[in-house]
């Protein structure tokens, strides 16, 4: 059996606003094996994004166990989590989340700076990444000077900066027209072929069909396929 890069057991997330509680996740079980391409689907409010955020260490669960590469994430310090976000996981957002004042080059450079990659290596890596997503000629452009598809490609290049094992994408094509969306999906497929583990939230059936496995969520619970076994 392949190695479980992601292992979740009864993961819960409760939000509290004053006296009001809201359970976004009520006990999710999930395993992701190395090299899998997984689609997470479900109606809005089903907890997809919350799940992704926890998976990407952008948020912490309020219950259950989350293991990343056999390490329990729940108890890690904020610095350890930062390092995981920096090196182990590449996150692609629906809203791109690029630094608005920075050029494509500078945006891709940010994770490398946090990883303390030295000057020459960093330059080569940024060029290589932007070439890989087809933006070698737009390096000096700022987000405002790029189309949505281009911005998302910059974001993908940025997610790949430190060669993470896992790519998490939260509706990466959600803000794009179908043509640019198709190009992005193609990029993800290439990444998958190169051996990356990819977990992607999507509403797009055609994308879901290409996934090896589709995980359905409903009301913060597994609907199907959370666990391989």
């Amino acid at each position, binding site marked *: 059996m392949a190695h479980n890069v992601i292992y979740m057991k009864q993961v819960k997330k409760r939000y509290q606003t004053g006296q009001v509680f809201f359970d976004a996740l009520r006990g999710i079980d999930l395993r992701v094996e190395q090299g899998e391409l997984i689609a997470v689907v479900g109606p809005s409010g089903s907890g997809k994004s919350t799940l992704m*955020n926890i998976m*990407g260490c*952008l*948020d*912490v669960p309020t219950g259950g166990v989350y293991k990343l590469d056999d390490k329990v994430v729940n108890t890690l310090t*904020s*610095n350890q989590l*930062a*390092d995981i*976000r*920096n*090196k182990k996981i590449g*996150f692609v*957002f629906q809203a791109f*989340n*690029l*630094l*608005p*004042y*920075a050029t494509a080059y*500078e945006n891709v450079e*940010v*994770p490398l*700076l*946090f*990883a*303390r990659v*030295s000057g020459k290596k960093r330059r080569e890596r940024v060029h290589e990444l932007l070439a890989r997503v087809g933006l070698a000629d737009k390096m000096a452009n700022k987000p405002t000077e790029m189309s949505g598809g281009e911005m998302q490609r910059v974001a993908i290049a*940025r997610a790949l900066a*430190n060669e993470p094992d896992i790519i998490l994408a939260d509706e990466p094509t959600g803000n794009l027209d179908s043509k640019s969306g198709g190009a992005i999906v193609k990029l993800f497929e290439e990444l998958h072929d190169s051996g990356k583990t990819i977990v992607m939230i999507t509403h797009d059936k055609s994308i879901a069909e290409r996934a090896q496995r589709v995980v359905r969520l409903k009301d913060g619970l597994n609907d199907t396929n959370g666990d391989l076994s």
Partner: protein
Amino acid sequence: MNVFLSIKQFFNDLRRQKLRSIMTMFGIFWGTCSIVLLLAFGTGITEAQLKSQKGMGENIIIIWPGITAKEFKGLPKGRRIRPTDDDVNYIKERATTIARIAPENGRNMNLKFGRQLTSRNVMGVWPEYGIMRNLIPQMGSRFINQLDLDNRRRVIFLGNLVADQLFGDSVSTAVGREILVNGLPYTVVGIMKEKEQDSSYRGRDSRMGFIPNSVYQAMFSERYSDDIVAQCKPQFTGEIMRQEILRILGEKYKFDPTDVGALSVWDTTEGFAFLKNFFYAFSGFLVAVGIATLITGGIGVTNIMNVVLEERTKEIGIKMALGARKSSILLQFVLETLFITAVGGLLGLMFGALIVKIVPMMGGEEFIGVPRLNLWGSMGVIVILGIVGLIAGIFPARRAANLQPVQALKLF
């Protein structure tokens, strides 16, 4: 390398957010500049006023002869009281509050050097007089001394304007030359160093000549002094000295020490005390304005920091999602504030210094004095504004950095 990379990132951020950086910098610049100027001109004006007040002499009173207005011990009123040099020595021997005392006589005389002729007040004085009245000789010259007085030497000390008038371009060689005073030859022993003087009773010292009183008295067969100048010891006031002198002379000449007619006295220390108090209040006012300016500047900096909070929080969220540690986020803020404050503050200091240099060139020194840069005060201002900026910037940043990345991304 760690620090180097942080610095690179910090400069990237700074460059990207030009407007924000410039606005913040300008806030610091303006605050620093205002306070630098306030302090510099405040100091200049105060010094100029106090200096020119001191120009006539510090802690001095001037005593003129008078006529008694009260009957005393059976003596009628209306008697003339006219002190002599002997009386001056008499007072000097007995008084405890007096630092220096000297008689003063004076009248208009004709001064002549070559073809230059001028009519000026020439005073007969003692050596102490020069010290009391701040008659400081220029380099290579001197004031009347005791030997001049004892030997009745015909020497003269000239006010700088008189010297300029008599000697013109050759004023630098004036010392040692002879001039004619009412037709008699006198050797110039000294020329007064230029000074600020805003009050007088016979005209400015710069327009007078000074000769030994013994010579003056011989020349005009004077027995009485026109007036007496006395300087009190720093621990006493002019008023205490005045009372003591009146008591001593009152005993000698049998008049009531409270008789305001017997001798008329000008206590210059009264005005000086007033001026000192005034400028004390003035300094307080400047400090208050400075504090108000600081607060305004601080609020400005705080505002800018808060206006960009939304943008900042998202930026922090993005950076944390990409692997920034809390410490590197905070380091970035500290560096940013330090840099902006240092640059803005130094620019403000330099601009203020420039104005401080330029303004005196446009004249008006007599009134506003020479503004003087208060380096420590200015540095203090920069530090305070920096701290305000740091507090204003670092608390929101810390709050954002303490959130989970996803919260920082979604907060606004």
